[in-house]
């Protein structure tokens, strides 16, 4: 398990084994459980910081024709998996994808469809949780780059500080994107209460019913997009854990450009309610 105290950047390294065709295609098809997203999560103590796997967000290997073919093959396999779950499922192709990037976009899109279909047909939410993390991270990274460029160009209004303004725009972008994303795969959060974007999560344990608003909730995961490092003792995070839906983990997602352990999971510490 990599935790905040582990030597992420300085630990011993092993040479990467040569990847054959088989391992490459597996890299595209990783069935992403939360344990795979955050290695060591299962055994991590409550309140620990468990870093995201290094290889979670990007497909590895040089962008070339082989990668493109593998991505196309992986896409085809995912389509078949979805069809097995829902024979009536129909996929509207994205725009032209004659590039590696286009193939990767399609693959990511299909993974989200598979996750949504698994939820709808089997009630299994774990894949959607993993794909939501992947999606939010990508959108956060893109918004961070765009936001910084616009701040430099003087186009974004700064009220308190540049950091605050940047964080605010990233939050808004990610929430809008997430709503559009969920709708695009048929997830209606007004009927499925376990999936929400910036929804109020109540804590009715005290005499006054209070609430917090995580940027998103998928099942018993609460997501917070932030530029600031937060831990289990940060009041906001404690507030999430105190919500009635009793999240098992709070996922802190920060721009990968910040380096270090940018995105991580904080497991729940069992507390008496």
């Amino acid at each position: 398990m990599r935790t905040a105290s582990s030597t992420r950047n300085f630990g011993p390294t092993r040479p990467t084994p040569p990847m054959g065709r088989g391992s490459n295609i597996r890299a595209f098809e990783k069935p992403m459980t939360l344990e795979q997203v955050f290695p060591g999560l299962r055994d991590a103590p409550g309140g620990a910081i468990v870093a995201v796997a290094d290889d979670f967000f990007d497909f590895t290997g040089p962008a070339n024709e082989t990668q493109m073919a593998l991505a196309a093959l992986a896409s085809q396999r995912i389509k078949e998996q979805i069809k097995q779950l829902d024979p009536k499922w129909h996929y509207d192709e994205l725009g032209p994808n004659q590039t590696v990037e286009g193939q990767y976009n399609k693959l990511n899109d299909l993974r989200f469809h598979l996750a949504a279909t698994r939820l709808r047909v089997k009630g299994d939410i774990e894949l959607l949780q993993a794909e939501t993390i992947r999606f939010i991270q990508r959108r956060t990274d893109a918004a961070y780059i765009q936001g910084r460029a616009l701040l430099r160009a003087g186009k974004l209004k700064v009220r308190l500080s540049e950091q605050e303004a940047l964080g605010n725009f990233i939050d808004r972008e990610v929430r809008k994107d997430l709503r559009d994303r969920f709708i695009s795969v048929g997830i209606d959060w007004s009927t499925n209460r376990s999936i929400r974007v910036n929804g109020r999560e109540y804590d009715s344990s005290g005499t006054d019913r209070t609430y917090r608003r995580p940027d998103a909730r998928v099942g018993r995961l609460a997501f917070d997009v932030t530029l600031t490092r937060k831990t289990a003792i940060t009041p906001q995070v404690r507030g999430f854990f105190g919500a009635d839906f009793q999240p098992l983990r709070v996922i802190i997602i920060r721009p990968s450009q910040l380096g270090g352990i940018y995105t991580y999971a904080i497991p729940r510490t069992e507390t008496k309610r």
Partner: protein
Amino acid sequence: MTKLTVRQYGNIKLYIPGTFSEIYDQIGSMMLHAPQFTDPSGYFHYRNIDTEFFQLTESFGIVRKKLGEERYAALMDLAVRAKALFAADPDDTNGKTDEGYKLLYEIEDLIQEARRKRVESKQTDDEGRVTGD
């Protein structure tokens, strides 16, 4: 909870923000993507100036009662003018994009003002809370 509104736009289904806080997010996102409002990542390949302003103006319709007629009319007017400015400066080279930004901020201010007034007058949202929504 607010019922979701999804509208058909060409061959895609677009989600329409249904609360002030969702509209606030919509405006923030638009500011990041002006003047063309496209998504270079490819995730949202369909996005363009038309889809984004469609979502925005349709959302005004959803919260029209909460806005009041005067503010609703002002927002629609601002949106039409902002869209025209961005459309006339797709490469951000002639200054109209900057003018468009000013109008987006005016839209944001009007939305925030409407939220504040709802809080001041203790009007509740769909969950019975005074939040401005």
